[in-house]
């Protein structure tokens, strides 16, 4: 087997897998954080006009 197959391609493969893993982790973290922020933002939203609390 050539040097390409044994050494070079596994090297490049590892590099792109690791860098892609960082991109994926950033995407997942972004989703998690925005879920939390939406939850907090909606709990802080003022109640709409015309609302009458039940007696």
């Amino acid at each position, binding site marked *: 087997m*050539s*040097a*390409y197959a*044994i*050494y*070079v391609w*596994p*090297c*490049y493969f*590892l*590099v792109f897998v*690791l*860098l892609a893993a*960082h*991109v994926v982790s*950033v995407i997942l*973290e*972004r989703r998690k*954080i*925005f879920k*939390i*922020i*939406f939850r*907090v*933002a*909606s709990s*802080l*939203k003022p109640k709409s006009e015309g609302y009458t609390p039940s007696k």
Partner: protein
Amino acid sequence: MLAPLSRIISPKYCYQITGYLIPWLSIICAALMLYGVVGGLYFAPADYQQGDGFRIIYVHVPAAFLSLMIYTVIFVSSSIYLIWRVKLADIVAQRSAALGATYTIIALFSGSLWGKPMWGTWWIWDARLTSELILLFLYVGYMGLRSAILDTNRAAYAAAILAVVGMIDIPIIHFSVEWWATLHQGATLAKLAKPSIAEEMLYPLLAMIAAFTFFYITLLCIRVRLEILKREFKTQWVCTLCT
């Protein structure tokens, strides 16, 4: 005079600026990576001694360079945090560590793959290799220390101290090939002398170094934005973003 500076280092301003920068940084990174990979794998001629195995240089050297550069960024940010208590500096240091550790792992692994055909061994306790391994331990220790302490301010302070102390390893790594008789070769790209590498091999190498750098900066901008949102999620401006 300090008012513009305090505006620049405010989380809200940083969030806005990084939002503008990220698309451009991504495009530049992708273009450089494409040129570097295609140039390094296909257009650069094979080395007369090492054959095609030398092409590992196009990931090994950029990864090693970035592993040192990112730790230096962590050192500078930690120093700014310790002296002036700038929150943004702590965020930059915190969010740089993971990618710095990744680049160090890439440098060690690719170096090992390169060492087997060239030196006949996967690993040797050479000055440069050993000090690079210590750098990996520093990165892992930094991240471990931050996550071990629950209080954010105490974690930031302890990690900043570790980062400052660990900076001693960077000049040791860089000068190890000059100070000791090592198996690892000397610098290919010197600051003042003409590079000892052919131009057809040099340009893809420079492109890959730049690509890895832009990748780090892009990911850092994204991660800093996320950390700012995490720390400031109860503030009005963050809630306004999402409504």
